[in-house]
């Protein structure tokens, strides 16, 4: 009987490891930016491209930076949750429109004239927000994705929680769900608001 105990123990250990492994999502790469200052940038605003937005404008507030694009399918699933959150007005949400034109695989951005990208991106983003509701305080346009690279964006949507000092406190990868909102994001916001 005793001789079976060791293999049984090893088997149980293996099952344990596999069980943990199944629950981990390999797509969720921990961001090294959590705990660091939100990278600086200055981008045109969707509502009025002559005006710029910079994360410095939000100092003193706890806020969310939500990276989205109209071509991003998961953003469609996430959007109602953001609209719901905006209605509660617990936290300002700033949108970062990520490669609105260049990121769209169905569109050949190389064929566009240089001056045409901004108007097209604005038109597409505005149409999307008009159809689905606009939860954003404002949306900044990251046409070429450079700011996205500075924030370590590798898949849209991604959402950053930034505190009053401008430090990134949390990064949510993939669509924000009601569950993620209630269990992770809202409690963290409450903590940071103190």
């Amino acid at each position, binding site marked *: 009987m005793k001789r079976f105990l060791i293999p049984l123990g090893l088997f149980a250990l293996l099952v344990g490891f596999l069980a943990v492994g199944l629950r981990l999502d390999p*797509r969720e*790469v921990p961001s090294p930016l959590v705990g660091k200052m939100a990278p600086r940038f200055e981008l045109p605003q969707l509502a009025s491209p002559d005006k710029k937005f910079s994360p410095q404008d939000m100092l003193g507030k706890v806020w969310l930076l939500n990276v989205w694009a109209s071509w991003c399918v998961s953003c469609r699933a996430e959007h109602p949750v953001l609209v719901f959150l905006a209605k509660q007005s617990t936290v300002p949400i700033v949108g970062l429109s990520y490669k609105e034109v260049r990121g769209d695989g169905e569109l050949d951005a190389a064929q566009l004239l240089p001056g045409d990208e901004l108007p097209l991106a604005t038109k597409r983003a505005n149409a999307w927000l008009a159809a689905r509701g606009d939860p954003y305080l404002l949306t900044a346009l990251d046409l*070429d994705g450079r700011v996205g690279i500075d924030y370590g964006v590798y898949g849209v949507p991604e959402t950053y929680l930034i505190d009053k000092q401008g430090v990134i406190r949390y990064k949510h990868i993939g669509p924000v769900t009601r569950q993620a909102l209630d269990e992770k994001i809202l409690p963290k916001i409450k903590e940071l608001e103190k």
Partner: protein
Amino acid sequence: MSSRLGGISRILLALGMTFLVFAAQGRDALPMAEDETVEKRMVAISDELRCLVCQNESLSGSHAELANDLRREIRSLIKDGKSDAEIMDFMVSRYGDFVRYRPPLKATTYLLWFGPFLLLAGAIVALVVYLRRRGRRVAAAAENADGGLSADELRQAEALLKQTETIESENKR
């Protein structure tokens, strides 16, 4: 009209069409970097980096949008005169150690680096213990060279041996 074309014209026409196809494909190809040394360094660096979109591909081999952007970023960093280490830092500070195919040695990666050696050491200890135990068992079996007979059976066997001896000696007579 085509029926009036001679053989050579037809071949020329076919050739012309072939080139048209090539020209059409050429437009879609990615612009080659003008500088070959920059390109070589870019490929060498991006070979060491993981594409975050398709995680089992290197950055140099990936066709993902983000990989394109990051290669462009690396190219411009090289042109700015950044060293390989600085470019690596640039990537790691944004995407974490996960982008590196060779993870650095630090407290959180000790298990990753030394785990296999730990397993090997454990296996060697288990093997040595097993061999020693088996050796002892074999030695014990060798000591009982009588083949494991009971005292009674031993006496019986000796008696039988003696019997054959007497029979043999009688036969010789």
